[in-house]
């Protein structure tokens, strides 16, 4: 006498178990992946192998990725494009930008005038959240967040970028193999 009603398997279920269809399906799936990896063609979506050989091959970051900051320069005169307007520092939600400006005497149309120019630019990447609001705020397309992503340093102080680093880019060890 059976005390518990267990659902009886249907004929199709019985046949499935007898011929081990599920096992064969699983083996087929792994074989598909394996062959896809060897030919580097689609196994499920896109490509056969998902591993990136990082130092050897640079990864393609997304177009909307924001990385290391940069101060752009005029390509002809190599003067900075920054007009020291301080809009980026105002826009920064993390308050990680310091624009230090100074006044210089220039002569415009025969009259001495004072002009505000950029002296030093401090960008603290350790606090930056790469929202790119500074880039949006910049009126001269000077400050820009590039696609560079190798920002690690050996000390906290290394995260604070000065004007030279922002203009020239920071020196990092490039591993090629």
């Amino acid at each position: 006498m059976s005390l518990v009603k267990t659902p009886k398997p249907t004929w199709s279920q019985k046949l499935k178990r007898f011929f081990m269809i599920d096992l064969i399906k699983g083996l087929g799936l792994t074989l598909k992946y394996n062959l896809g990896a060897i030919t580097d063609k689609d196994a499920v979506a896109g490509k056969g192998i998902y591993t990136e050989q990082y130092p050897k091959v640079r990864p393609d970051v997304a177009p909307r990725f924001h990385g290391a900051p940069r101060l752009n320069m005029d390509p002809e005169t190599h003067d900075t494009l920054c007009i020291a307007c301080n809009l980026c520092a105002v826009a920064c939600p993390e308050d990680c930008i310091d624009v230090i400006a100074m006044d210089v005497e220039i002569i415009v149309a025969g009259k001495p005038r004072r002009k505000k120019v950029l002296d030093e630019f401090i960008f603290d990447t350790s606090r930056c959240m790469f929202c790119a609001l500074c880039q949006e705020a910049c009126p001269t397309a000077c400050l820009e967040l590039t696609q560079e992503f190798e920002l690690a340093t050996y000390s906290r102080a290394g995260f604070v970028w000065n004007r030279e680093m922002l203009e020239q880019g920071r020196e990092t060890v490039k591993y090629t193999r």
Partner: protein
Amino acid sequence: MLLFGPINVLNDPLLRLFSQETINFFIWPLIQIGLIVTLVALWVAYATYLERKISAFIQARLGPMRVGPWGLLQPIADGLKLLTKEDFIPENADRWIFFFAPYIAVASAFIVFSVVPFGPDWAVIADVNIGLLLVLAVSSVGVLALILAGWSSNYKYALLGGLRSSAQMVSYEVAMGLSLIGALMFARTLSLSGIVAAQGSDSIWYVLYQPAGFLLFLISGIAENNRAPFDLPEAESELVAGFHTEYSGMRWSLFFMAEYAAMVVVSSVAATVYLGGWYFPFVHRLEAGGYHNLFVIVSVLVFLVKVSIILYIYFWLRWTLPRFRYDQLMDIGWKWLIPSALINIALSAFAVFLVQALNGWRGMKTIEALDRGLNLTLTGKVIMIVIGLAGVFITAALLARINWRSRDFNLKTQRRNIRLVNVPKGKPAVSASEV
């Protein structure tokens, strides 16, 4: 000279130093042993590389890539790393047994290669007439190593792993031995070279006569080698690493080598007995054309390809199937594999009897010759293949009927059943729909 006739380039200079007997029974075997040990060790090392690569490909990864082109030097780097590691011995371990267990494992795996026919003529070290028996006997000594390693480590997980492996290997040993008997009925010899020769003269692979035997041998071989999905002795999630938890450095890698060498052994026995060994159609024309050594080398390559295919099945299964529960493992061993091996023996005996009985009945001719194994005509082969294929389904259906209760072995259901016995009528503790 009979054995090594074709390579007489080396024979003449050797003859100045030694007598012909010494060369035949001492020098040549030593050269063969040296070659085969080196090649097999290399092969075992590259089996680990292949395992890593195939597992990586199955998981859409790349696997080892940094040492050498495509990581081809990775096994050598691994070996060097392990050689320089500390050989740690636990404080309360049984020192000497702890020392020797890995050597037993490796020796039992490597001795078997002395009888495996890699090819015809000089590609086999010793053509013993009880080759298959020796393979089974020596490879089962490997269990001893695992038990000793587990015991001498003086550690609970290692001991549990050793116990599990001994129980598992003892129970699958039976099925492994029984599954080979069907093929031996056709070959009529235990010599591995003899089995290959029997398949060659019958011009068929015994996997066609014995599909059930082949499957049983593969499954029990995987279980015998403690490979996934039967890798309970070293189940990471339960026993850390099983019997080799306390091992480190080269001793650990010896266990690893033993595992892969045992895999190669089982695959080469499967290739020899069921896939025709080094025998391959059209290769014999090289021999007839006078290219004896080329024929031997091509035969060895054919054998290696066959073994590699079976090894690939090993890797493929490992990275597809999850591990069995321990009761399921014993269930498969005792309730499925051993009875089906027995049924397979009965069926193949019946088939051999039928073919012999049909010979000469109403002018039917099924047997060509009996001196080199069972040589059948086309009619006989068709009968044999049909019976063999039908045998798989007959066996499976019969056992499915016999084991229909144990198929759904489920502790939860059993507990519910027991609890429901004392429940008063009309008030079930668990509604039927929930169960």
